[in-house]
């Protein structure tokens, strides 16, 4: 094992450079793992500190004494139990590291160290706290609900389990889709910051009280109290007038052999580790699931410097946005459709996985294939975290399309228990843009119930939010969400929810290549600009490879000449007036799906302008490998110009390519400068 001079083991998985993120780390402190001194940054989760020091086994189980690591890394699954300063069963994924902490591998249920004195906090006042509006969960839905309720004058208490507010937003390094009037084109991490900035004046004025690292562990209906626990040190009750539950969701476990082995992690855990704390989960990852999360996290792994061995997907086509699939395909990541993980191998940590093809009925067929990897990332879907609704006696419905059991609700997102509202993933698995709108609706509805909003403002605002939601849910990939939502509205409520929208083409109507994120041969021609104009146009013309109806408009919003036409419906695929295109490549930098390119064929050789979000940072003169839509090397070239990011971190690189490759090359990889 590598050792520093001071005898402290050197961190092996630390991300030093990242194309999008900068990690602001605190003070380095010494702590002890089974008596051995290690160092990491104060106040980051213990589990992260250990991982960065190459400690992946946190405990051994009580029955079979199997090694265990963390799984969800957001405080939900309790796989990360360890003994901390004598106290067993501490959730190390959400417990902050302190100087001199003594962390021990837990065996079985764990025992107290006899000499240990527990640092229980002195009770602060009454153990029952009153709250007007209690919001549980500080993710996109919860923060938006907060803002809305505060805007109307409600007094709000926000309870959040994590160490940092923002829920899953704080690990989203990609640019969001949706409308440019809202957050489209902005990265999730920045959205979290924007929302928090908007909340801060209310904290100052005392109208908002934020309780971080606090879990709402129970609701007692008869007494109407929510039992909360803060940092393992304080237990208290909140007696609220109204409750908005926005507790989010947890990664689903997949039953395969050795699915409990350290190295098998939920996608959320992988994101926490690498995007919040700058620690790589592994060097070579197998991704399970090609929904949006699987595709996005794969791309993020590449950005962080890991290798993605493959993405396996049980369905016959990718479930997430097609453009997200195209992004990873062109970087050489294979997407294996109709494949599943059968088994993971390794002694105390993942050393590889066995995958196999499945037929239409889900039966295993063909030969087993071994994939060498040190991490298996599960992104097969999420389960809403709904215990509080069950405890509150809310009417529930099992809706597969929404991820499992969810509470029924009216069109203001109030559940059958009049004290409870629901918003975000816990209302049905979707994504952050819709979660924020749901949060606003719940916040508005609570304000109405507390008589803070007059009837007409309420109605008009509610309709405004619903119009946006309906629009966002009209795209092809939202068809399951629409189908699911049609089953969850309480009878008699008049939902403003619309069922209309586009359905994806049936799988059999598309070729395999397209279904896994690579443009079909016969579609390539349809995205090319008209040849007569193209040949003459200096600076080139735009090529947009965005064949799927998804809610997104930054290409139009960032086009200075009006060449990319306005969207009648935000889900429409982009339409181009080539006569107005100047080849400026603003859309190339702005497109969240990295689906816009510019090709200039007016000269002797063609110049391609491509989006670039990887390391190393591009410079003029850099040698590059040109990759096609499947990540195959088709040419070598040089960067002739770099357009620096104007407001974001996406570079546009200009590379010279032979003319016949203009419709093939879609990204570049730097050749080592050294």
């Amino acid at each position, binding site marked *: 094992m590598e050792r520093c001079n001071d005898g402290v083991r050197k961190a092996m998985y630390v991300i030093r450079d990242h194309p999008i993120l900068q990690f602001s780390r605190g003070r380095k402190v010494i702590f002890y793992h089974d008596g051995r001194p290690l160092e990491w940054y104060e106040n980051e989760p213990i589990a992260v500190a250990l991982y960065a020091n190459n400690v992946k086994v946190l405990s051994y*189980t*009580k*029955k*079979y004494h*199997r090694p*265990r690591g963390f*799984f969800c890394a957001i405080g*939900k*699954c*309790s*796989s990360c*139990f360890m003994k901390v300063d004598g*106290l067993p*069963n501490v*959730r190390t994924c959400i417990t902050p590291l302190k100087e001199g902490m003594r962390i021990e591998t837990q065996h079985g249920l764990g025992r107290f160290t006899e000499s240990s004195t*527990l640092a*229980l906090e002195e*009770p602060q006042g*009454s*153990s*029952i706290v009153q709250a007007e509006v209690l919001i549980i969960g500080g993710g996109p839905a919860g923060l938006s609900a907060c803002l809305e309720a505060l805007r109307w004058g409600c007094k709000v208490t926000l309870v959040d389990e994590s160490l940092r507010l923002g829920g899953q937003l704080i690990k989203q390094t990609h640019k969001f889709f949706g409308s440019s009037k809202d957050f489209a084109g902005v990265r999730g991490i920045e959205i979290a910051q924007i929302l928090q900035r908007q909340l801060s004046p209310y904290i100052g004025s005392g109208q908002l009280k934020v309780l971080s690292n606090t*879990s709402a*562990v*129970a*609701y*007692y209906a008869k007494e109407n109290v929510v*039992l909360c*626990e803060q940092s*393992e*040190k*304080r*237990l*208290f*009750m909140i007696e609220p007038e109204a409750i908005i539950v926005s507790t989010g969701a*947890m990664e*689903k*476990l997949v*039953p*395969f*052999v*050795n*699915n*409990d*082995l350290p190295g098998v992690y939920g996608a959320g855990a992988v994101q926490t580790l690498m995007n919040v704390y700058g620690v790589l989960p592994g060097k070579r990852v197998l991704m399970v699931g090609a929904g949006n999360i699987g595709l996005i996290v794969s791309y993020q792994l590449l950005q962080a410097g890991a290798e993605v061995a493959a993405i396996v997907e049980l369905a016959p086509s990718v479930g997430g946005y097609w453009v997200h699939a195209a992004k990873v395909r062109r970087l050489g990541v294979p997407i294996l459709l109709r494949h599943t993980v059968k*088994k993971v191998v390794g*002694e105390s940590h993942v050393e590889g996985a066995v995958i196999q093809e499945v037929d239409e009925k889900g039966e295993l067929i063909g030969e087993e294939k071994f994939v060498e990897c040190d991490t298996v990332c599960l992104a097969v879907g999420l*389960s809403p*975290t709904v*215990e*509080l609704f*069950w*405890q509150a006696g809310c009417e529930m*419905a*099992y*809706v*597969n399309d929404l991820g*499992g*059991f969810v509470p029924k609700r009216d069109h203001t997102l109030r559940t059958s228990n009049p004290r409870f509202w629901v918003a975000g993933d816990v209302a049905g698995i979707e994504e952050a843009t819709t979660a924020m709108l749901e949060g606003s609706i719940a916040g508005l509805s609570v304000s109405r119930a507390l008589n803070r909003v007059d009837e007409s403002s309420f109605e008009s605002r509610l309709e405004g939010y619903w119009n946006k939601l309906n629009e966002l849910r009209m795209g092809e990939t939202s068809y399951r969400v629409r189908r699911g939502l049609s089953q969850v509205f309480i009878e008699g409520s008049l939902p403003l929810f619309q069922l209309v929208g586009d359905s994806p083409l049936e799988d059999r109507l598309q070729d395999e290549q397209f279904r896994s994120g690579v443009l079909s041969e016969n579609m390539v021609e349809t995205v090319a600009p008209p040849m007569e104009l193209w040949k003459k146009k200096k600076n080139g013309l735009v090529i947009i490879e965005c064949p799927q109806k998804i809610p997104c408009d930054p290409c139009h919003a960032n086009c200075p000449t009006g060449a990319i036409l306005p969207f009648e419906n935000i889900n429409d695929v982009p339409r181009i007036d080539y006569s107005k295109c100047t080849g400026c490549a603003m859309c190339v930098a702005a497109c969240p799906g990295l689906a816009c390119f510019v090709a200039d064929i007016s000269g002797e050789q063609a110049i391609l302008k491509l989006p670039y979000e990887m390391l190393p940072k591009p410079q003029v003169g850099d040698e590059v490998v040109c990759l096609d839509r499947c990540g195959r090397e088709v040419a070598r070239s040089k960067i002739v110009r770099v357009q620096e990011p104007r407001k974001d971190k996406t570079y546009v690189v200009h590379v010279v390519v032979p003319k016949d490759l203009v419709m093939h090359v879609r990204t570049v990889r730097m050749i080592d400068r050294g």
Partner: protein
Amino acid sequence: MDEKIFVCRCEEVTLEEVRRYIRMGFTTFSELKRLLRIGMGPCQGRGCREIVLRELSKAKGVSISQLSPGTFRPPSKPLLAGLLSDVESKKRG
């Protein structure tokens, strides 16, 4: 290491066990919970409940929406007994 497929990580219940008990005639989530401790560990069924319900649904030929997911007793995470007694004594005044 033995090859096991876990349904419940906390209580280390395998898919094989769940299927065996279902075949023995225990066809509700609550029964399986009492017999196997499935869903009674520190995560309180967040990981396993759905997999078990899917198995039950397959075995009984009914949709999951017709199955009871069992009771969701508080608390949803382990608490220090010392903290609990503290609250209780204060409540009594």
